[in-house]
């Protein structure tokens, strides 16, 4: 773009800012405002139905309360476990699917269209569907595994505290790996064919071709997918809410559900805001770590 396209602004930047201003205003109003409001509230004793007169500034007390509570610590590890499991699987599956669908074979277009279907299904519908699949007494999964001889007795998936989180994870992976696949596929469309031909002539094997040509080429988009998926899973709420409501005995309760409970069930908006802000910080840490990684990698290349 540096060469100067038809839309480049040459006469000073004032007009450029003017054109950007609607976006900036919308972002400040819809993102910045609520974020600052949440941050401010997290330092107060605000309650959901309280009056301004009752409002006290309590400094970091909400954060201390949250960080020392066993329910938060538990929810934190539940969230991280869920994020690690689902994001890893979604990235690997997505990468594999993207690579496969970039190859030419009969029926490729149909498969590419089908790939979008799980992602296009609303999360709540997906959650209800999987809840039925996992149902302990009449679920399809039990029927399938029993008929295939894998299990002898019907078993509970969402009711088993050591399995429930992973069962939800599988539902989440099924829904979300296609978006990673699509991003990979889109990135591969721009990979120059002649580089592969040259590598082929030079005798590079498939793994070498993948690591030296494909991966550097899709690293940027892949990183975007990684960041999006990580943020999404760290603030996971709806799929868990529908499938288990955090049970059994809170073994699948992620951090965002605590925000909901504290803010809307216990009406402690101050505490709820503090947890919400901690979630934002956790996301931020992951984003910074990822972008560092990307920079180091591109420097290495």
């Amino acid at each position: 773009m540096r060469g100067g396209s038809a839309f480049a602004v040459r006469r000073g930047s004032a007009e450029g800012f003017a054109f950007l201003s609607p976006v900036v205003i919308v972002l400040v109003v819809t993102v910045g405002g609520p974020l600052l409001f949440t941050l401010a509230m997290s330092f107060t004793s605000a309650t959901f139905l309280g009056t301004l007169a009752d409002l006290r500034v309590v400094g970091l007390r909400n954060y201390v309360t949250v960080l020392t509570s066993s329910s938060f610590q538990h929810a934190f590890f539940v969230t991280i476990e869920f994020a690690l499991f689902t994001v890893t699987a979604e990235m690997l599956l997505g990468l594999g699917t993207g690579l496969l669908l970039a190859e030419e074979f009969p029926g490729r277009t149909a498969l590419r269209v089908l790939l979008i279907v799980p992602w296009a299904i609303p999360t709540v519908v997906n959650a209800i569907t999987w809840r039925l699949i996992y149902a302990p007494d009449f679920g399809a999964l039990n029927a399938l595994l029993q008929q295939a001889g894998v299990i002898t007795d019907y078993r509970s998936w969402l009711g088993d505290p050591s399995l429930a989180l992973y069962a939800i994870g599988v539902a989440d992976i099924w829904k979300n790996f296609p978006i990673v696949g699509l991003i990979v596929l889109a990135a591969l469309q721009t990979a120059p064919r002649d580089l592969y031909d040259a590598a082929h002539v030079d005798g590079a094997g498939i793994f070498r071709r993948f690591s030296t040509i494909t991966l550097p080429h899709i690293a940027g988009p892949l990183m975007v997918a990684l960041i999006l998926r990580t943020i999404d899973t760290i603030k996971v709420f709806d799929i868990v809410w529908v499938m288990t409501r955090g049970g059994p005995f809170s073994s699948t309760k992620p951090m965002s559900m605590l925000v909901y409970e504290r803010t809307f069930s216990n009406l402690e908006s101050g505490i709820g805001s503090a947890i919400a802000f901690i979630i934002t910080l956790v996301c931020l840490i992951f984003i910074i770590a990822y972008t560092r990684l990307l920079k180091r990698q591109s420097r290495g290349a």
Partner: protein
Amino acid sequence: MRKYLTATFLLFSLVIHLVLMRPASADEAKTLNVLVMSDTAYSDKDVSSMTASFNTAHPDINVKVDFVPYAGLRDRILLSQGSDGAYDVVLIDVIWLAEFVKRDLIVDVTDRVDPSLRAQVFDGAWKTADLNGRLYGFPWLVDAKFLYYNKKMLSDAGFSAPPKTWDEMNNQAQVLKDKGIVKFPIVWNWGQNEEIVCDFAYLLAARGGQFFASDGTPAFQSEGAKVLDYMRGQIRSGIANPSSREYNAEDGRRAFLSGEAAFSFNWQYVYALSKNPAESKVVGQVGVAPVPAGPGAPEGTSVNGSMALSITKTSKHPEEAWTYVTFMTSKDLQDKYAKAVLPVWTASYSDPTVVAGQEELAAAAEPNFKNMILRPVIANYVQMSSALQEGIQAVLYDKAEPEAVLADIASSVGNQ
């Protein structure tokens, strides 16, 4: 360039104008917003047709009804406070009354209720509207947990009557299991939700236990531990379905009505569904009885699950709202829809036209509705309930011991 800027600015203003300035409707002054629940009582269809007949009788009042599942009802009531178009009439559960009154959310209607009506409605139903002698609504639903049983399974096992006591139920269940009539004879709704606290509450009452002593100190630890031991024992021995631990009321209802259990504990709405072939594989086999009794008690004690219609403090039309509440809770209307939900009016139960076709439910309901205990009437009930749900589940999954769990909850709840 200025032209573009002006155009952008105008476009932007137009969008904001369109978003903020909604046309004011002329009849807004007479619109009532009503919030009720969509599950475990009257169906959406019933409430809509009741409301339609109200609208016909009162063409000057326009009623809009919103439905949410029970699980989201309390949060929706709280969230709508102070919002534009907040609700005028809301359905409140007996366990929220103390909190809603303390938070000043619902209107005191003591002076609107004709005192002669007090005696005509079940005492237990009033508990959902009556706090320290003041009324904050009118009972709309009277409900308690019932024992539902599968008559065919019981007679196959050689039993002619449903169990009268909790111990007898365990014995019958064991026989049913041993004879291979049903794999898991009992199904409970013991997921992490309010149902598990309801069951804990009446099992506690059956042992003569209570939540708080008269001086407000927690008193449920010692008898409560025996209750948890009883609950855990059923899961361990396999007379209760281990999947009970992930079921809500609807899950438990489905399992029972697909013939996977001989005993189930649920609200009265299950009775109507049990006769509907679309919902039930055991049409004609379902019996209903009051909950079993504890050791030495003459009768069982169920849990009060009544609900009332209340007017919110934010309502701009309390008069019209009360007209609607009066209509919805009237004996005539309730009698007409008695097939879906039994009326709150005691006289209805001796009216053969009202109980026709559901004599068995009505017969079980009368003693059951007279012997109902309340879950704790405290302003922070929701927090206590969520601690109980988590703690009881931990015991049922063998992750914690009853005594330790209840001691923790007692100290976190504190004196009331």
